[in-house]
């Protein structure tokens, strides 16, 4: 799901939450009922509400298991070593289109974020660049063009200027 779709889901949830909470708070507020009668009905509804939220949470968790981006890199994939340092990236100039590749990402100094942006400016993939560790980011580029790279972990005074890029063809 794209981040635009996630934003859409969020707006729907937010609007529903606001409408429901405001409605239930204001609905016949002056037409009072004893607390016991409100809770008697409310606790029955709560059982269903608990069931629904538990089902959604567990279903979402199980669904996401098939989308884990941390799988071990394929042996046959081509590897590119990426070194981040204050305030630049050591990157390949060109990477191939349509084949699995692995970025082996590390840092020469502090923590950085290796964030790949598509030619249209959306986040494509990311991983942390950490000193003393190598993170393996496996991707397949399906659209050719210039991909920019931005640092996505605060690293110092020129953090916002820490950029790079490569061609996919």
């Amino acid at each position, binding site marked *: *799901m*794209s*981040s635009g779709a*996630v*934003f859409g*889901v*969020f707006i729907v*949830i937010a609007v529903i*939450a606001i409408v429901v*909470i*405001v409605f239930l*708070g204001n*609905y*016949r*507020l002056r037409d*009072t009922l004893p*607390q016991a009668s*409100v809770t008697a009905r*409310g606790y029955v509804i*709560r059982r269903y*509400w*608990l069931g629904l*939220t538990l089902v959604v949470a567990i279903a*979402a*968790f199980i669904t*996401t298991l098939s989308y*884990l*981006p*941390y799988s071990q890199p394929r042996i046959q994939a081509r590897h590119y070593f990426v070194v981040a340092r*204050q305030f630049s990236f050591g990157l390949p100039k060109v990477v191939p289109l349509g084949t699995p590749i692995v970025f082996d990402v590390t840092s020469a*100094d*502090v*923590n950085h*974020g290796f*964030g790949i*942006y598509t030619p249209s*400016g*959306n*986040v494509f993939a*990311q*991983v*942390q660049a*950490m*000193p*003393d*560790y*190598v*993170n*393996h*980011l496996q991707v397949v580029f399906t659209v050719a063009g210039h991909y920019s790279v931005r*640092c*996505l*972990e*605060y*690293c*110092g*005074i*020129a*953090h*916002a200027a820490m950029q790079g890029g490569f061609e996919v063809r």
Partner: protein
Amino acid sequence: MKPLSVTLPAIGLRVMWTYIATGLAIFLLMLLVGISMRGSQAGWWTIEPGTFYSLLSLHGIGMLTAMVVAGLGTLWYLVSRETGLDARVAYLAYAFFVAGVACVIVSIVPGHYGALWSMLYPLPFTGTYWPTWATGAWLVGTALVMLGFMIWCGQILGALLARYGGLGGVLAVDYVLHNRAFAKLDHEPPPPQIFAAAITAIDGLIAGTAGLTVGVALIVRWLDPTVAIDPLWAKNLTYLFGHTFANLTMYMAVAGIYVGLPICTRRAYHTSVPLVLAWWGTLLFVIIAYFHHLYMDFVQAESLKLVGELASFLAAIPVVVITVYGAVLLVHRSGMRWTLGSMFLFTGLIGWVVGGAAAVLDSTIPFNVDLHNTLWVPAHFHTYLLEGVVLFTLGWVFVNLEQRAGASSGALIRWLAGLGVFGGGALFVLGFYIAGAAGVPRRYAVEPPPGPYLAGIATVGAILVLVGLLVVAYEALRLARLPRSEVAP
């Protein structure tokens, strides 16, 4: 079970108002710092990157300390109504907070420290633009804040253990597992706000220990530059402390709901078995959800990421099924009047749910790939803090002021305050959300498009919040100056 001894209400109130006034004063100052940064990102004025990151460091630790101090004050008072507490310990913790804030200010103003509040080792030592002593002042300052927090946690947990007969009593284990026998013995479980205090104290001690551990390691590294620290170890402890410290602010502020809303609705908020179970869940989930901060560290075990995701999902259930749902039931058809106190407490529920929903989306692993360290992150926690914790705190303040004065505010004041704080706040966080969804990175002194345009909208929203808060402050002072009344508003 009767209280063993109870602190004099006047002493408890004095401690509470000292903490709350300090927290809200720091909050207002940090709001000005935030507006200056957002306006700079919008291009309305220029703050050069070094100063920007120093201000961002101050804003982050300042806001969290403000919310923590205000929340701890409220809880201290509420616990003091149940059992004896020594106010000197509360003031000792307060002194640690003040000393810590003073050190942080020294590190920022003359020192220009700029590694942010939750810096990841090898920051703040490598490639810095500030003197080494400023790093030391920052580390000592944040350690003092942590120590103040842990002193509070230790005092509260100790008092609750004594009052309720051990951890099982505090967590109402017999009440849940042997409910009928418990009722036959005429025992009563702790009231809801005690769970907020206990979970804050227990998780606070765990998180504080993690924070102090990495803090001491960093201080040792500051004293001896040859010392090496494992970056992944430091990152885990930093997020364990940072996530828990930030998350607990909400669970502190929710005590205002448990005690404040019943005053507004003239109904009771009782402890129930589902409520206790919800707090047991919260006790665990708040601590282990932090793994979601390390999704992008692929070297970290995959199982821990799954624990982080599941805990993040499950942490939402006690919120929406028990606390928020219970609060809405409390208000529903209660005949409650809308005053500033009840309005803030009630609208804070919305901020909690909306900010929480955004957090759950971000903690969903496939979405996090797109949202991690974008402006979506400050979007969710500003919603949670500004439209949740701050509103709960203001609500609690006004419930007390209205009750004391036997008066409340007019409709015009309520609308101005509501539109400013809630409406302006919504506009403010919307700028973050849209930019985050567009992939604009967080913590950029100069943002790529569409960041600056959205920062402009957000700055307008933040200024509206400031105007709303000035109305709120005026009204608070007006109510505080009214003579004490015995008649409820």
